C-alpha cells in the first residue's frame, strides 16, 4: 500500500494530575504541579509533532473511608490557566482542557475558551464532561443539583449555548477603525438563549479566536455519552485495554454519526494509552511489569477493592485471593471516583469471575482492571503496534499518558515518533497552525442560518423579542428600568471602574 493511502496516527498526551497512573516514587519523578513540568512535557510532545496536550479536570480530592485519599498522586492546577501559560511557550501544539457542563455556566466557559483560542492563535479544545454527584457539588454554590439523567441534556444545551455565544460576533464585527471612529459593528456580541437549562441574554464580550469554535471533545462511555459525541464532538476519548473492545467501540461510535448527517471522518476516536519503550522487547516487558507493580502497591490494591466492596478489607492479603464475602452498598469507601457506576454487586461479580478464570491475586486483578491500552516493546515494536491498531479501525490515534512526570514521553518522542514518520503515518512537521488543521477537521460547525460575516444569525434570533426585558428564570428582574434610561454621554464617574 502506498504511504499516502495509510491513515495518519493522531497523537496527544496528558499530564495526569491524579490517580495511580504516575510512578511518583521513581527518583526521576518530579513535581506534578510546577509549571516547569507542564512546559517540559508540552515542549517535548510539540517536538514530536503531537496534535495536542490534554488536561483533565477533577474538582474534589477523592476520599477513602471519609478521609482524603493519600496513596496516589493528587493535586493539580486549574487546567485552562495552565494551558494559557503553555500557549506562550509553544507554537503549534493544541491545548485541550476538560471543563464540566454541570458546575459551570455557558457565558463564562465560552468566554474562557474564546480567550484561550485567541491567546494560542487557534489551538484550543474543550473536553465537555458531565458530572452530577453531590460529593463534587459540595464545593459549589449550586451543590449537587443535577439528576444524573439530566447531565447530558444540560451538557448538550450548554454546548449549544456556548456556540451561540461564539457566533454572537461575526467576522467583521471587530473593526477598530481609527479613521472612521468605529470600534465595533452595532450589536456585536448580542445574544439570547432561552431553553430548558439556560435562559440568558445580553452582550458577549469576546470575539472568537482563529478557530471560531474550539475543537469539541467528549469522553465517556455510556450510551448517552456516545450519542452526544456522535452529534456534537470532534474527538472522543475512550478507555480500553483490549483491541477487540476498542474495535467494537470504534464501529459503534462511527456508525452513530450518519444519523446526524456527519461523516465518519468528522469524529476522531482516541483511546488513552501508555507506552513503555526500551531497547528490546524483553527489557520493555520487564520494565512494564515493574511499573504496574509500582502503580498498584499492596495498599492501593486493597483500597481499590474496598471501594467496590464498600467495606473494610484491610485484613485481606493483597497477594491472596479475592474475598468471598459480598459487597455492601456503602458509598463511603471511595468518593469522587466515577469508575464503579455499574453498581457494586455487578462489578464485584465480574471481578471475581475474572480472578477465577485467570487465577489472579487481589493485586494482580487490580492491575488488570485498572490498566489502559499499553504498548510495550522496542521502538519498532511499539510503532508497529500503534500503526496496526490505527490501520485496522481500532482507533484514529492515542492520548498517551506518561507514567513519569515530566520526562515520561522522552523515549517515545525520540525513538518511536521517527519510526512512525518513516512509515508515513505521522507528520514530519505541522502543515497548519490551528488544532483543527492538525486534526484534519473542517471549520467549526456553524448553526443553520449563519451566513458568515455581515449575515449574523443574531439578527434573526433577536427580531422576535427584546430579551433584555424578559424576566430571569428564578425571580423577576428588578431592572425593568434599564430600557427606559438613556445612556449619558458624560457620566460622572470613570466607567471602567467599579469599587472593589
Amino acid at each position, binding site marked *: 500500500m502506498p504511504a499516502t493511502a495509510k491513515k495518519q496516527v493522531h497523537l496527544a498526551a496528558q499530564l495526569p494530575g491524579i490517580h495511580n497512573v504516575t510512578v511518583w516514587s521513581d527518583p526521576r519523578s518530579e513535581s506534578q504541579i510546577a509549571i516547569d513540568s507542564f512546559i517540559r512535557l508540552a515542549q517535548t510532545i510539540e517536538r514530536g509533532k503531537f496534535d495536542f496536550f490534554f488536561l483533565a479536570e477533577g474538582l474534589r480530592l477523592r476520599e477513602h473511608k471519609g478521609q482524603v485519599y493519600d496513596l496516589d498522586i493528587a493535586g493539580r492546577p486549574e487546567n485552562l490557566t495552565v494551558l494559557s501559560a503553555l500557549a*506562550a511557550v509553544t507554537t503549534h501544539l493544541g491545548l485541550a482542557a476538560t471543563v464540566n457542563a454541570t458546575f459551570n455556566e455557558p457565558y463564562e466557559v465560552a468566554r474562557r475558551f474564546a480567550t484561550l483560542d485567541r491567546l494560542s492563535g487557534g489551538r484550543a479544545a474543550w473536553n465537555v464532561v458531565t458530572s452530577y454527584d453531590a460529593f463534587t457539588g459540595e464545593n459549589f454554590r449550586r451543590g449537587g443539583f443535577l439528576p444524573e439523567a439530566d447531565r447530558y441534556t444540560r451538557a448538550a444545551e450548554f454546548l449549544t449555548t456556548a456556540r451561540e455565544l461564539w457566533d454572537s460576533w461575526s467576522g467583521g464585527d471587530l473593526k477598530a477603525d481609527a479613521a472612521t471612529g468605529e470600534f465595533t459593528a452595532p450589536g456585536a456580541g448580542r445574544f439570547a438563549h432561552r431553553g430548558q437549562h439556560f*435562559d440568558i441574554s445580553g452582550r458577549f464580550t469576546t470575539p472568537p479566536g482563529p478557530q471560531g469554535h474550539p475543537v469539541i471533545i467528549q469522553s465517556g462511555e455510556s450510551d448517552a455519552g456516545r450519542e452526544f459525541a456522535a452529534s456534537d464532538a470532534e474527538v472522543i476519548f475512550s478507555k480500553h485495554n483490549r483491541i477487540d473492545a476498542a474495535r467494537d467501540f470504534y464501529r459503534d461510535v462511527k456508525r452513530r454519526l450518519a444519523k446526524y448527517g456527519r461523516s465518519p471522518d468528522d469524529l476522531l476516536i482516541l483511546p488513552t494509552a501508555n507506552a513503555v519503550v526500551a531497547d528490546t522487547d524483553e527489557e520493555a516487558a520487564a520494565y512494564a511489569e515493574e511499573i504496574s507493580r509500582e502503580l498498584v502497591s499492596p495498599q492501593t490494591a486493597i483500597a481499590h477493592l474496598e471501594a467496590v466492596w464498600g467495606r473494610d478489607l484491610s485484613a485481606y492479603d493483597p497477594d491472596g485471593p479475592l474475598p468471598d464475602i459480598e459487597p455492601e452498598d456503602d458509598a463511603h469507601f471511595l468518593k469522587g471516583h466515577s469508575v464503579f457506576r455499574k453498581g457494586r454487586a455487578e462489578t464485584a461479580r465480574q471481578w471475581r469471575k475474572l480472578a477465577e478464570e485467570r487465577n489472579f491475586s487481589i493485586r494482580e486483578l487490580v492491575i488488570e482492571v485498572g490498566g489502559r491500552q499499553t504498548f510495550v516493546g522496542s521502538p519498532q515494536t511499539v510503532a508497529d503496534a500503534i500503526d496496526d491498531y490505527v490501520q485496522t479501525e481500532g482507533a484514529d490515534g492515542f492520548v498517551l499518558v506518561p507514567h513519569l512526570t515530566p520526562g515520561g514521553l522522552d523515549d517515545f518522542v525520540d525513538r518511536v515518533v521517527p519510526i512512525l514518520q518513516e512509515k508515513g503515518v505521522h507528520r514530519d512537521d505541522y502543515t497548519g497552525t490551528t488544532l483543527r488543521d492538525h486534526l484534519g477537521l473542517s471549520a467549526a460547525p456553524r448553526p443553520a442560518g449563519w451566513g458568515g460575516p455581515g449575515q449574523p444569525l443574531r439578527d434573526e434570533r433577536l427580531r422576535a423579542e427584546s430579551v433584555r426585558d424578559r424576566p430571569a428564570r428564578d425571580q423577576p428582574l428588578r431592572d425593568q428600568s434599564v430600557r427606559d*434610561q438613556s*445612556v449619558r454621554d458624560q457620566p460622572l464617574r470613570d466607567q471602567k471602574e467599579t*469599587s*472593589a
Partner: protein
Amino acid sequence: MTGTTGVTDPKGAPAAATGTPDGAPLHLAVALDGAGWHPAAWREEGARPGELLDAAYWADLVAEAEHGLIDFVTFEDALGLQSAAFHLPDDRTDQVRGSIDAVLLAAHLAPLTTHIGLVPTTNVTHTEPFHLAIGIATLDHASKGRAGWRPQISSRASDAAHFGRRTTPQLTEDDVTDSELISQPLRALFAEGAEVVEAARQLWDSWEDGAEIRDAATGRFLDRDKVHHIDFQGANFSVKGPSITPRTPQGQPLVVSLAHATTPYEFAALSSDVVAVTPHDRPGTAAILAQVAEAVERTGRDVVERPLRTFADLIVFLDDEPGSAARRKARLDEVAGAELASDAEIFTGTPAELADLLLDWRSTGLDGFRLRPGALPHDLTAITRGLVPELQRRGVFRTEYASTTLRGHLGLPRPTSRYAKAG
C-alpha cells in the same frame, strides 16, 4: 473633581530625604486596560487598536512595565461588555468594546516575564468561589509567586442576565451621582464578595506546606493530616474543600481592591492586602487614609499580623515637554467629544512634575500608586522611561528587583496556613 491637575506643591527638594521619611521604598503599579484609560486613546497614533484582544500586544506592554521595575500590573475585566455608563450597558460603537479573560491573560504572560506581579480582575458575584480560588492559585504556580487577584463585584443588572441565575440591584441615575450612594444598594454584594475572598483564602490554606510527602515506605503520596476540609459556611454559599491545587509559592496570592466609599473600605479592611483609593489632592489623601484606618478598626483587623498596603490611583498623561501632555489630552477629549471624566485624579505633565506630586501625596502615609496610563503604549513608556528614572534619581524607587515574588516586592510576609498546627 476632574480636569488637569498641575503640580500643586513642587517642593523640589531631593526626595531621598523628604520623600522617604521612614526609608520605605515607593511602590508603583500600572493599571492596564484596552488602549489606555482615555476612551479615545485607541484612535491615537501609536495605538494598536486591532490587537487589544491578542497576546502579543499584552506581552509587549508587560515587558515594558517589567523593564521599568514596576511592582505589579493590573488587568481590568468584567463579565459584560464595556459601557460608557456606570450602571447599565450602552450601544456605543465608538469606544473600545470586547475583552478576554484576565486570569488567562495573566497566566499567558507569566512564562514571558520573571519578576513583575500579575493581578487580574475577576468578578465575584456570578462566579464560583472554588473556580476563582484555583484559577488564582494556578496563576501563582505558573508565575512562581507573582499572582495577585482583584476581586470585583458586578454592579450591573445586565450582567446578571448573562447568567440567568439571580438578580442584582438596579442602580438609578441618582445612585451613581455619589460614591457613598452607589455603595449603599451594593452592600450585600460587597458582603458576599468578602465571603468569596475568605473562602478562597481558606482554600489556599487548605493544603499546608509539605503536604506532599511521597513516602515510598508507607506508600503514601500525601500526608492527609496536612490537607483540610475548609467547611466554609457563609450567608450566601458553602464550600467543602479542600482545594484541588496544592499550596502556592506565595501561600496566599495578593488580594488587591479598589475602593471609593465606606462599604468598599470595609471590604478592603476585611479582604485585601492592597487597597487602591482615589484621592484628588494631598488633604483628600489623608482624609481617605483616615477612613480606611477607621474601617480597619471597625472590622478588627490586626494590621501587624496582616498589613494593608495603600495605593492611590491616578490617570496619567506624561510628556517630557512642559504643556505637551495637557495638549495631548485636550486633543483626545476633542476626538472623544467630551472631556475625560474619571473616579481618579487626572494628571497631565512631565515625569518630574508627577514625581513631585507622588512624593507630596505619599507623605500622608501612602505606600504607593497605581498609575493608569491615559494612552497605551505612550504613557506606559513615559512611566517606565521617564518617571521611573526620575524617582530612582531621587533615591525613592528600586534600581533592580530585590525579590521574585509579588509579596516580596511589597515587603509582605508569606502567610502560614491557618490549619498548620503551632510548633
